[in-house]
Structures are given as C-alpha cells and as structure tokens.
C-alpha cells in the first residue's frame, strides 16, 4: 500500500453515562491510502459513527478519546490545540453527515455556503462565483445559477446532499468521513448519490472513510471493508475478498443475510441473540455469546488481529484454516 493519508492506532472512546464509564470504541486501528475508499460497516451501537467523530474531534462532550496516534499525512492530530484543530477541520479534514439539510445555515442561501468554502480554501473569495458554479456542475446539478440562489429549506434531500458533497470536494481535503450519507434518502435518490460517489472516486486524492450499515452499499462502493462489532474492527480486507470469503463468523452472518435477501431465500439465516451490553462486556471475544463456531478459548481470551496484513480477522478460528 502507498503511504497512508490517515493512520489511526489504538483509538479508544469512552462515554461517562450515569456514573458508569462505557468504552464504545475499543482499540481501533485504521490506515487509509490516498484515493482509497474504506467502508466502515457495522450495526447501530457498533461504534462506527463514534470512530468517525473521534478522529475528527467531534465526539460529544461526555466522550473521552485516547489513541496511540491519529495521524494525517504523518502529523499527529492529538498534539493540536482545539483552535488549531478547527483550522484543519473544514479545510483538510471534512465530514459528510446523514442529515444534509442540518449541515447548512438555514438563514443563508447556497451561494453563501460555497463562498465560505472558497474563502476557507484560499483565504479570500476571488473567483468564488465561478468556483461555486463549477463545483455544482461537478456533482451533476444542471442549473447551478438557479440552485445557488435557493435557501436550504428549498432543497430536496438529494439536492442538499449533492451540494454538501460539492462543498466538501471544493475544499480538496486530505480526509473525508461520510457517515451514512444516503441513509435518509429515498431509494432512487440514494442510488443517484452512490453513483455520484462512484464517479468521483477515481478523481479523489483524499482518503475516504464511508460509514454504513448496508452491506450492499459497501460492496458497491468501497475498496476495502472494515467490519465493526461492539467497538472493535473484527475483520478488515479487500471488499471482493471479504464478500467472497468472509472469515469472521459475524461477517459471515452479515454477508449471508445480504445475499439471501437479494436472492429471495426461503428463510433468512439468523445471527442469534443481540449486541452485548458494553457497560458489562462479556469476557473474551465479544461475539462469543452469539457465535455459532464458538470454542472454549473464545470465552476466556479476546482474539488479537490474526491473518495476513491485507486481511486481518479477530477470530481464533482463522488459525484452524
């Protein structure tokens, strides 16, 4: 792999809730290369969103984030003051949220937002109108002049997300974190936005983290996939390989369900049970209570990341293969 844009080592995020301390991100390692799309997939509560927010220092106030390193282009972001971090965010680091309309200032028109982006990038607004138009055309908006005069509430969800993507791209950031950017959109619009991402993919030099719970979206869009379960990445590898040969029992279950729904199986394969309570996590592997392939050892010790560097799996069963 080429030199990673983003390198995260042992990221841990704890929340203080009702006096208890709950670790929701439990030692996450990530590396994303320039131009690469890494899919971070998992269920709600798996810690995927908090991972994204923690990297961008946007985690809620009751969160305590620690890591051995969170480095962008070799610079450890943890050393930065909040003010210095603010300078970086919205410039070299960008986030695309699930609810696009909420990311706009409701009192300002679209053109104001794009102008801020230009100012942010080059320190002044020279040529901003041209840049704004070009940015909107770049994301497939056919009449940019009309759209630039609209207020956020006048935008459809798909249009708002498209403009937000245009703003992020206009920044030319090093790192983009997109958190379920199509989940709130209707089917047809969702597909259009995913197609837009796919189209842009080749042109991006940024490292791109795409957070989603949807296996089929991850399969369509991502170069590599990292599967999160209960605060840990349990499997990470090239997309095609993870889908064709999932090695973690949890990934196997997710892939089987996605495929069964697609091909109208007679009955869906279930993953029994539910996510563990992270306030009182079970000993050993956190998936063990639900795992069909569980061994005695799994209930005593937590498996480290095993297997080749290109396809890591936190499961002792990998050693059998």
């Amino acid at each position, binding site marked *: 792999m080429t030199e990673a844009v983003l390198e995260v080592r042992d990221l841990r995020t704890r929340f203080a809730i009702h006096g208890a301390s709950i670790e929701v991100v439990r030692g996450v390692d990530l590396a994303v290369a320039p131009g690469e799309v890494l899919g971070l997939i998992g*269920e*709600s*509560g798996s810690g995927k969103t908090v991972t994204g927010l923690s990297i961008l220092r946007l985690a809620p106030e009751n969160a305590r984030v620690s890591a051995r390193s969170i480095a962008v282009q070799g610079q450890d972001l943890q050393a930065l003051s909040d003010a210095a971090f603010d300078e970086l965010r919205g410039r070299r680091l960008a986030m695309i949220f699930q609810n696009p309309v909420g990311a706009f200032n409701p009192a300002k028109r679209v053109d104001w937002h794009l102008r801020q982006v230009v100012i942010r990038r080059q320190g002044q607004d020279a040529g901003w109108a041209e840049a704004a138009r070009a940015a909107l055309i770049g994301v*497939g*908006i*056919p009449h940019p002049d009309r759209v630039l005069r609209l207020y956020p509430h006048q935008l*459809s969800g*798909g*249009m708002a997300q*498209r403009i937000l993507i245009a703003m992020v791209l206009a920044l030319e950031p090093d790192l983009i974190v997109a958190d379920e950017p199509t989940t709130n959109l*209707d*089917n*047809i*619009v969702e*597909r*259009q936005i*995913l*197609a*837009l991402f*796919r*189209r842009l993919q080749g042109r991006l030099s940024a490292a791109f983290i795409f957070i989603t*719970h*949807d*296996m089929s979206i991850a399969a*369509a869009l991502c170069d590599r996939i990292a599967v999160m379960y209960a605060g840990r990445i349990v499997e990470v590898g090239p997309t095609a390989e993870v889908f064709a040969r999932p090695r973690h029992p*949890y990934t196997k*279950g*997710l892939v089987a*369900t*996605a495929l*069964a*729904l*697609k091909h*109208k*199986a007679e*009955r*869906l*394969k*279930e*993953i*029994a049970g*539910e*996510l563990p309570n992270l306030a009182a996590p079970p000993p050993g592997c956190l998936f063990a209570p*639900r795992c069909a392939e569980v061994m005695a050892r799994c209930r005593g010790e937590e498996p480290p990341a095993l297997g080749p560097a290109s396809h890591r799996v936190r499961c002792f069963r990998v050693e059998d293969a």
Partner: protein
Amino acid sequence: MTAAASGLLRLENLSVTFPGRGLGPESSRRLRAVDDVTLHIAPGEVLGLVGESGSGKTTLAKALLRLYRPSDGRILFRGADLAALGERALKPFRRDLQMVFQDPLSSFNPRQTVFEALATPLRLHKVCARAEIAGRVAELLAQVGLSPSFRDRFPHELSGGQLQRVAIGRALALSPSLLVADEAVSKLDVSVRAQILNLLKDIRERHGVSILFITHDLHVARYLCDRVGVMYFGKLVELGGTERVFGQPRHPYTRALLGTLEDALGGGIEEQIAPPSPAGCRYASRCRHRIDACGAAHPALEAAADAGGGHAVACIRWRALLDSHTTDKSE
C-alpha cells in the same frame, strides 16, 4: 366480484386528504395523501406496500385502521364499511385489526412492564377470564420467541429487537385477522432484522393472519410478501404477485425503483426529483417515457393482460414499453 377476490378486507376508491399548509393559495388546497386506491387483502396473505417517503403508504394503513377518517371511499370488512362507522360502532372491529409500529420504544408505556403491555388488551377486550391472563401472556411470549423471564421487565430494559417481538406479541394477543406492520423492521439492526422477518413469516404460517407490510426496502418486501402494491404520491401505480412485479415490472416508476446502482451509473445523474404533476399522471413529471396524452388524466389501474394473475398497472404506455428493457437503464 367473486368472494375470493373481495378477500378479507377490501378498499374501494379510498382517499385521504389533509388541509393544505401555509398561507395564500396553497392553504386552501387539500393535500391528497391517498388518492382513489382500490385493493384487497386475502385471508392469510402478506400484501406489501412499497414506495418512497411521502407516497402515502403509512396514511393508507392508518386510514384502513380508522386512525384517520378517510375523506372518500369504502373500507369493506366483515360485512361492514369501516369508513362510514363512528367510534362506538368501530370498537368491535378494532380487536381484529392490529398494528406494529416502526419505533417499538415509543409504542410502549415506559412505566408498564411487558406483562402489563400484553395483559392490557386481554383485559380491555375481555378475551379470557382473569385467572387465565397469566397463562395467555406466557403463551404470547413463547410465540414471539421470548423467555418467560421477560414478563417483569420494562421497555427501556429491552433491545429494539426484543421490543419489536413484544409489539408483535401484543398485536397477536387479540388473535386479529389482519396485522398492519409499518416499517416494522426498518429501525432494527441488520443482524436482528432477519430474526423478526422470520418471526413474521412463522406467525403468518402458524396463525393464518393476513399482514399488510409497509416498507421502503424492496429486498425485504420481496422476501416476505405474496403480492406487492407500489405507491407514488398517493396513487397505487402497480399491483401484483411479488415475483411478477419484481420480475416483470410494468410501470416506469416501478422499473426505476428496481434499478440497480449499475443502472444509475450508466444513465447519467441529472436530478430527477420533480414535484408530482398537478394534472394527468402523477409520475409524468419524472417519467422519461411521457407523451402528451399522459397529461390528460391519471390513468386507472388496468390489468396487465399479458401477465394475468391480478397484475395491474396504472400507465397508458405499459404496452408500448414492453419492448424496452425489463429494467430501465436510465432511471
């Protein structure tokens, strides 16, 4: 109309309108959330309603349960027209029509235990003797795959999947003949969703209950439903056997819904979201197959004759479009 086709429940020309919002001319116009929908649900059948947000599928369900008063049309059920009945006259029918909501947590009283939640409908409708209630609650828990230990827990102590099981148990408590499930698995985690879908499938098989299953997720609809109806801005635009509708979609909107990411990639990415056409076919403003005649009136559902089996489509051009690809590459 034969008895079989009229089914367990039949909607005839059902419409639901709401007052317009805002000031000016907009406010005097009524919004037609459900517009002249006719369909039936057969005994023991799972009928899916699919469509995007705002298409009227939830409003249709709520009107059918008489949580809304329809502005027009009939709801024929057990020899009565529910649309015409008042609250008091409706009461005996209520226990026969039950609902499972999308958000399980907000559909429970936070201060009631699972036992209370399941026992309340039994008491209200005097389904069984007081002494039998505990036994019946235990039965219900077992039916939805929960251990008896759940009876004394409170809603906040349960996960989303467990709560949805209780919600299904509560709906089954009165042995209804129709269960309306409105996005009942949408908020659940992927790994739990399969459990609840399988549970619904089992319940239909074991109890013979009909299910109206509302979803925006086409894969889920295909898995569970015998027939599906596709809604667009209040109109039912296509209706038929699940495999028919998914395998040979006839309406341009259904084809667009069923398109894949690959189709979207091939077909350009211009914004296709246009407001529904004010006159004529609702879908015309987004439809790339529209012709002048589409502006005349919204087409009625007509039998897609080549397909048979109750497959119907509301498009004047469906025959002309048969020659184009099964799914439209550009939509």
